[in-house]
């Protein structure tokens, strides 16, 4: 715990250093900022969007926004929180966009892509370093993401922020703009729905 806080502080310190460098005209400083945060941003976008290409597009947009609005960043506040908020907002807007919803509607009608064809599933499977239970963990990750994709976007957002990203209720309220009661009820329903969906797949572990 102590270690992770130290690591977090280090990332925060380096982020602000690069941000200052960028504002002073160092083009490379912005690239360093991207490299420092791309995994976190891309991962969050992937979980929220549920689609590899959508995630890629969103994550790029997040850094475009950072580039555009960094001038307005107040250095007293946390850079990571600021960045996180931009990422969540970008995904939220994308999920709410008419275009996205139309596309999802169309996808629902089409047969679901098999694991072999879906680059996102492939990505999820390819990851994982522990050789012992790596395969099992990748499989579980893919199954969970599929179950997440079947949730309504607000439910998915709440459960991802809480259970994957480990955010507190207060943070989720601030990030999503939902009321505390709504966050709790959506979270409860999302968790039960996920459990329902995963029953029989990772059943022996869930039971």
């Amino acid at each position, binding site marked *: 715990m102590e270690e992770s806080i130290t690591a977090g502080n280090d990332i925060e310190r380096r982020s602000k250093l690069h941000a200052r460098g960028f504002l002073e005209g160092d083009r490379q400083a912005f690239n360093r900022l991207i490299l420092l945060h791309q995994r976190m941003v891309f991962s969050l976008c992937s979980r929220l969007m549920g689609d590899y290409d959508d995630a890629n597009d969103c994550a790029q947009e997040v850094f475009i926004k950072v580039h555009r609005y960094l001038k307005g960043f107040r250095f007293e506040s946390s850079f990571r929180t600021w960045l996180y908020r931009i990422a969540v907002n970008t995904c939220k807007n994308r999920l709410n966009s008419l275009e996205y919803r139309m596309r999802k509607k169309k996808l629902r009608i089409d047969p679901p892509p098999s694991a072999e064809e879906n680059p996102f599933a492939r990505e999820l499977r390819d990851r994982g370093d522990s050789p012992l239970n790596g395969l099992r963990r990748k499989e579980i990750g893919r199954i969970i993401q599929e179950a997440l994709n079947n949730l309504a976007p607000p439910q998915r957002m709440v459960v991802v922020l809480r259970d994957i990203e480990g955010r507190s209720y207060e943070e989720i309220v601030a990030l999503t703009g939902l009321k505390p009661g709504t966050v709790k009820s959506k979270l409860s329903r999302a*968790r039960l729905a996920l459990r329902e969906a995963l029953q029989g797949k990772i059943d022996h572990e869930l039971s």
Partner: protein
Amino acid sequence: MNCHEVEKLLSAYLDRALPERQRVRVAEHLAACGACRKVYESLTVLLRHMKDLEQIDPPADFLEAVNARLEREGALKRTMRRLFLPLRIKLPLEMAAVAVLFVMMFYLAGTRDGRPLREIVTGMDKREIPESRMAPPAGAGADKAETRDAAVAPDALEHKRGGSAPAGEPSPGKEKTAGGRPAEVAPELDRVDKKADRGEKKGKMEVLVAEDRAVSPPAGEPTGIIHEEKVSSPRVEGEKPESVSGSSGEISPNEEERKRLLKESRGEVWEEADLPLGEGSEPAREIELEMEIKSPIFPDKRGKSSNETFRALRGGEKTALAEEEPAGGRVEKIIEMLQGRIIEKRYLPATGQLSEVVFAIPAARFDELRRELERIAGFPRPFPVIDGNSGEELKVRLKLNYPPPDLPPR
């Protein structure tokens, strides 16, 4: 507390987010109910799995992709900035543009007259301002046909017919003044007479007339400026303007004034041709021709008739437009080609198209002239028989009628 209620609270129970009393009651229920305990345990496993999920790596080219997008957006932004200058630069520019527009407007319309820009630019002799220009044309956009009709007032026609008699001979029957008048009368003097004849511009105009008389060269000498159409109209030299207007018989001064005002209100624009009168001789006969221009443009080098042009344009043949020239310009070229001398030109104020041209041409070239004109328009009307061997010079007044403005499509 039943199972359904407990299931709803399990999520908050797992997060230790329940008030103490509820937490205890849920815990008691879980201890007693195996089914609910099973749900609780599977939720615990689910949460652990989700917590353990690893972060997902972005594609290898993620950094390049972001930079490429930034580059694109930057280029777009620069373009936009160029298109939409900041207000502090844009506003003064716009104000300057408005000021320039105003100055141009007043210069063109307000200062002296409403002549087309072309006339001013070509630097015509500005010593005299014909009376019809003293007031800017009120109805510049008036119907073209109407304007053309108005161009020839009845009295003017009479004069012309009278003038088409051989030189020096008083024209029979149409005399408005007592006695004939030599044809060699200086154009200015004649114009002056005409002005005075129209009469009642009063004070200022009379002064101008007097000055004109003072500076005008002796009668009979070519001066190079012909202002009005009544070059050959019979009139006694030196007769007092008042007596002329008084003796004009059936047309009263008031009637003249009314017609003049009508002309002005229709925005007639006259242009003086700044060409010498050649040998100073007056053309013997005056012929009026009228022709219907089929198309306001004429493809010169392809030698197509205007009908062909029209059809080509209608058929969407873009190239037909490539070598076009205005029909009026074509007519002028034809006249010059046939050694004609242009005496007067008249334009439609609304479109700037040549509406009437008066020119002198050797009688021997008349047939050629007609053939050339037929290539632009229908047959010129009427169809006078001219003796090409007479060696005389003809004065031709050619009126050009244009199709309505919406034809052909351009």
